[in-house]
C-alpha cells in the first residue's frame, strides 16, 4: 500500500504542494510586511511645479499634518524619496526635468497628480506652454482633483494610494 503511494508523480505533487506552502508561508506575509512598510512611509520628493505647492505646504502644516500618515515633507534629496506629488501645471520647460527627477528616483515609486492642471491641463487647456496632463510622461497612481485641491482631498488621495500599495504585488519572491 505504502509503496504504491510513493511514486515519482505523487512525490512531485507533494513537493509542489510543499513549495506552495512555503511560498504561502513566506511570500505572503513577507510581501504584506513590505507593503505595510511602504505604505506607511511615503516620502514625497520635493518638487514644486506650480501653485498647487501652496496647498501641499498647507497639507504638511500643523493643521493637516500629513506626517500623521508617515509622509514627511521637505525631504532633501530625491534619492531617498518614493512619492512624486506633481503639484500642478507642468509646462513644456518643466516636463523633461520632471521626467528626469522621476527617472532618478529609486524603485518603487508612486505618482500622485495633484490639481486640475496635472490631471488634464485644467485652466490651461489651451495654453501654448502647458502639457495637457501628466499621464503622457509619468504613470499616475492617484488623481487628486481641485484647483488647488484642499489638503483634505490630498490626504484622501494619499489614503487611496495606500490602499493601492496594499493591493500591489510587493515583489515576485523566488
Amino acid at each position, binding site marked *: 500500500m505504502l509503496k504504491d503511494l510513493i511514486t515519482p508523480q505523487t512525490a512531485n505533487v507533494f513537493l509542489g504542494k510543499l513549495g506552495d506552502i512555503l511560498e504561502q508561508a513566506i511570500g505572503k506575509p513577507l510581501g504584506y510586511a513590505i507593503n505595510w512598510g511602504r505604505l506607511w512611509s511615503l516620502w514625497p520628493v520635493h518638487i514644486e511645479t506650480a501653485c498647487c505647492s501652496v496647498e501641499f505646504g498647507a497639507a504638511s502644516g500643523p493643521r493637516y499634518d500629513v506626517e500623521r500618515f508617515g509622509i514627511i515633507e521637505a525631504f532633501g534629496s530625491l534619492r531617498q524619496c518614493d512619492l512624486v506629488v506633481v503639484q500642478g501645471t507642468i509646462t513644456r520647460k518643466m516636463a523633461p526635468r520632471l521626467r*528626469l*527627477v522621476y*527617472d*532618478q528616483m529609486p524603485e*518603487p515609486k508612486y505618482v500622485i497628480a495633484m490639481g486640475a492642471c496635472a490631471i488634464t491641463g485644467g485652466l490651461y487647456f489651451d495654453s501654448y506652454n502647458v502639457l495637457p496632463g501628466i499621464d503622457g510622461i509619468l504613470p499616475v497612481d492617484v488623481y487628486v482633483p481641485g484647483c488647488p485641491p484642499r489638503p483634505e482631498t490630498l490626504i484622501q488621495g494619499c489614503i487611496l494610494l495606500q490602499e493601492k500599495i496594499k493591493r500591489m504585488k510587493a*515583489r515576485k*519572491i523566488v
Partner: protein
Amino acid sequence: MVGELASNYSTILMMFGFAVVATAPALLISRMIAPRKRSNPVKFLPMECGQVPSGAGRTHFMMQYYAYILMFVVFDVMAIFLYAWGSSILSLPRTATLPIIAFLAIMFAAMAYALDQSRRRNIW
C-alpha cells in the same frame, strides 16, 4: 609579557567589526529583495536638481577656509599633548607648570597669527 594590554583595546575593534557585520546584511537583503530596474541610464547620473549635470563633480574646495585645516593639524597635536600633562598633573611638582605655560604661550602666539590670517578670507 609583551602585548598584554592590547587585548583591552581589541574590544573596540571587535565592536567596530560587529557593527559592520551586523548591519551589512541590511544592505545585502536590500539588494536581494528590492526591485531593481536598470533600463534607464539617466538614473545613474549624478543627481542635480532635475538637471542633466554638467562639469566635474569634485571641484568645490572652499579654499577660503583652508587655513583652518592647516591649523587643525597643528593644534590637534597640541591639544592631545596637553592631555599628557593634564593626566599626570597630580603627581607633578608645581614648578612643572612653567614649561607648559611657556608651551602654551608660544602656541597662543602662533594661533593668534594664524587666526588673524585665516580671518582675511580674500587671501585664500
